[in-house]
């Protein structure tokens, strides 16, 4: 039994069971809303982490794909009556296509140049969508048609189904990350991330690797975009291409543990959880209190746990394992 507990798989399984059971155990819809946000931003973080964590391409413009996904599915829904499930995939494809020229431009840039260029691309898209109103409603944005309970059109009248949808998305993201981590692509990714020139020197086609991972990252981020606008019933350029989305995607990965499988999840739980708690305690009309506290926490984490919180959890986990191993040893004759 103890040896079973020390297997990583057990914990993942337990987590999965809890995750699935959560909406049934918790009745507060506000709590479920927080969980949905946590799962969604964890998913966005996981998508970002592929690029930013493993390949160390620190993009601050992922909102571009988030927005493209969101707008594609919305345009297909409202103008052509296409179900957002299909629209979601279409959005993913649009995002992948967009990632090609953006990547072509940005991958030649290093460090902060890359970051600023990605910010610029997301901003340009936002400005374009603000400008061209006839196509995509411009600054006013649009709300999703109220279809009541329409599962086939990604609209539900209770929160739990949204929760499960985004849970599945996160599971898919984690599975992809897990699979990539252990594949040849994963090794090349890390090599490129650690030292691109050295990797190139031993024959790794860095550009191709970066392009491929960008395709996947963009695709997944776009799925998140569709889900998000379906959930909040609204889209406008500022929301869809929001710089905050780009920042949060990177932030949760960094706080949780960049380049690790569970990092983004842990980071999101901390950041979104704290933010939600602060909002409900302090967010009652005293301008600035909750964000001040939130930013102080952020600074504290960055100063004292820069490797991300996953360091703490790994250490705790290791201690538990060491504990059970010792127990096993002393139990044996």
């Amino acid at each position, binding site marked *: 039994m103890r040896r079973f507990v020390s297997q990583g798989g057990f914990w993942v399984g337990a987590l999965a069971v809890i995750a699935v059971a959560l909406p049934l155990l918790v009745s507060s819809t506000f709590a479920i809303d927080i969980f949905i946000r946590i799962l969604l931003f964890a998913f966005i973080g996981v998508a970002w982490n592929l690029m930013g964590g493993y390949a160390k391409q620190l993009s601050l413009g992922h909102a571009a794909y988030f927005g493209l996904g969101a707008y594609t599915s919305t345009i297909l829904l409202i103008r052509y009556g296409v179900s957002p499930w299909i629209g979601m995939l279409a959005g993913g494809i649009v995002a992948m296509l967009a990632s090609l020229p953006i990547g072509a431009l940005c991958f030649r840039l290093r460090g902060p140049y890359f970051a600023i260029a990605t910010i610029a691309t997301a901003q340009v898209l936002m400005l374009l969508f603000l400008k061209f109103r006839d196509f995509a409603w411009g*600054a006013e944005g649009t*709300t999703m048609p109220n279809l009541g309970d329409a599962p086939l059109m990604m609209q539900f009248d209770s929160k739990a189904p949204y929760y499960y949808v985004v849970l599945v998305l996160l599971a898919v993201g984690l599975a992809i990350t897990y699979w990539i981590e252990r594949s040849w692509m994963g090794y090349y990714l890390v090599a490129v991330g650690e030292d691109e020139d050295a990797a190139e020197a031993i024959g790794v086609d860095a550009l191709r690797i970066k392009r491929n991972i960008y395709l996947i990252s963009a695709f997944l981020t776009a799925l998140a975009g569709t889900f998000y606008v379906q959930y909040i*019933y609204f889209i406008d350029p500022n929301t869809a291409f929001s710089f905050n989305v780009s920042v949060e995607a990177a932030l949760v990965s960094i706080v949780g543990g960049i380049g690790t499988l569970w990092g983004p999840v842990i980071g999101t739980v901390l950041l979104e959880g704290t933010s939600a708690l602060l909002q409900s305690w302090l967010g*009652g009309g005293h301008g600035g209190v909750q964000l001040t506290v939130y930013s102080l926490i952020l600074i504290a984490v960055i100063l004292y746990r820069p490797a991300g919180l996953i360091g703490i959890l790994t250490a705790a986990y290791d201690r538990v394992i060491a504990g059970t191993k010792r127990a096993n040893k002393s139990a044996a004759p």
Partner: protein
Amino acid sequence: MATTWNSTLAKRRNRRDFLKKSTGAVALAAFGIARKAFAAEPVNIGGLYPVTGSFAQIGQGCVNAAKLAVQMVNEAGGIKSLGGAPLNLIVSDVQSDTTVTRTETDRLINAYKLSAIHGCFASALTLIASEVAERAKMPLLTGSSSDQLNKNRRYTFTPFSRASQFAEAQLQMSRLVSDSPKVAVIFENTAFGTSTSNGLREQASGQGVEVVMFEPYSAGLTDASPLINKVRASGANMLFPVSYLNDLILIIRAIKQNGLEIAINGGSGGFVIPDFYKNVGSVGEGLLGVAHWNHDVNADALKVNENYKKQYGEFLFEYAGGLVAQTFMIADALERAASTDPQKVRDALSTLDVSSGYAAMGPGGKVKFGPNGKNIYAHPVGVQWQHGDLATVFPKEDARAPLLKT
């Protein structure tokens, strides 16, 4: 060990003392409660406003007014049909952010037993709150002007004029200043800017006004001079800027700095708040605008304005005054519904028909909602900055001060 025992003893002693002292207090309180036993449970209403972020300044003013309004309702005896139940306002900061608005509207509706909500000042935010409220079947009152708020909704009520009506008023007012108005419309790229300016463009020719420039601009200007340069080149003799305060300040000052002689109708939004005048100073004197509510509209408005001014040191601005009226509309609905159930409140709102009291202190003095949540009597008023205060000057029936010629 001994120390633990001693401290336990000490704890026990302290507990006994505490109990002795507190029993007295509890008894007193119980007596008080027993006396108030007839008083009913408070009725919860929600207020969603941007207290932080880009609309923070107006949001804070709205929250102040919301609290004042609830105070006024309660001092007048609360909801009599519910045994004098007081209103309890639950405020939430939506941080000028659409996501937060979505979450907070949800949270308020689900965490508290609300009977109605009001908010959120900025049309972009209200649209989201309205969607959530619609699906949660919670009545929402708002002064936000976007015409979209009246489409396909049963739970959103807009007691004041719509963006399209603002546009009409602005155009009519331009005829007061010039016989052949050539208007430049510059508007910020937000829901507020686009909906208002659309109204202007659609109705211009019908009102005999020529639009010579129609340009959206990116909100958050670092410099208004390039915009003004363009306005000058367009040959306009009148400018309609549709904007929130920060850009408006820059625009007005840039006009002065660049020596551009042009009549201005600042519309609504950032133009009709005290801070506007405080920040542009005498340059703002005589400038025209439109508003869905003003503090000189009738005697009730003047009274509330006095109250507000005493507490907060500046006059009660458009949106804030409007939401005081909205609070009284909610109180009226609660009174007639004799229930805190949101569905009954919604139904009571849909049959609201007032022409006196604080609930009716808007332009026109009457509130009655049509099937799409619009107040059939709502219309905007034209306002003018006169001696540092905002006076209503248009239309004739609503004018409280003569139009100053500049």
